[in-house]
């Protein structure tokens, strides 16, 4: 099997998390904000899996499954809210919606 240092896996998930955070900060389109939130959740789950593989214990992967369930529920509710938002204001721009 591979012998990748744990830090590199954590760097990967940190990089993904930072990119998702940047997306939430700089994008004004609501769809991109939701996608970036998914990226951030996914990066956290990836860190769990990396830790699980470092200690060869299944607990981290169990946590990843729970993160997955949270992400699925979040996506369902967020997209339903998005549809309502678009129906109400005809736009997905967070600035125009906020006015």
């Amino acid at each position, binding site marked *: *099997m*591979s*012998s*990748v*240092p*744990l*830090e*590199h*896996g954590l*760097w*990967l998930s*940190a*990089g*993904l998390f930072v*990119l*998702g*955070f940047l*997306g939430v*900060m*700089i994008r*004004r*389109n609501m*769809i*991109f904000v*939701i*996608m*970036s939130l*998914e*990226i951030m959740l*996914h990066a956290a*789950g990836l860190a769990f*899996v990396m830790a*699980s*593989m*470092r200690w*060869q214990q*299944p607990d981290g*992967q*169990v946590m*990843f*499954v729970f993160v*997955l*369930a*949270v992400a*699925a*529920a979040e*996506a*369902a*509710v967020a*997209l*339903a809210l*998005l*549809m*309502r938002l*678009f*129906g*109400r204001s*005809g736009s997905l*721009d967070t*600035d125009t919606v906020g006015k």
Partner: protein
Amino acid sequence: MPVIDWEPMETVFYLSSAIALVSTAMVISRIHAMHAALYLIVSLLAAAVVMFSVGAPFTGALEIIVYAGAIMVLMVFVIMLLNVNREKKNPERKWLRPTAWLGPGMLSFLLLGLLGLLLTEKHSGNVGQGEVEVKQVAASIFGIYLIGVELASMLLMAGVVGAFHLGLKKREPISTE
């Protein structure tokens, strides 16, 4: 110290990490939402390959099935339904004044620096010396984490009810602008 130590799994790990990072950067920089969704699928698949390469096949498969399958299908469906093709020239430059982002930005970068310091401090072992099999994960999920499964099912139920309730309301006419 072996002389020639080329391990294919390491190469797979680093290559697919690079693909994941690049395609995630593409996600947050695209203009069209559908292009971003496609790049996000690529990113999720690359992360699944990363998980396979460190020996976690169960989560890799779940990643493809649930993330790249279910969640992204939902996203693509909503993007097609709303057809948000026309993004206006955003007033982002006007909104992002230095006074607004300087404080939080500095604090965030401080935290990022701390993270970097932690990760470069000392070597803390390798990932993927072996494989954690599906059997172990399943025994753990339905053993000591059973209460978590119940809570997750309640959360999913709440999500379903919430999404149904939000979608059911009397429709206002969707303005096509």
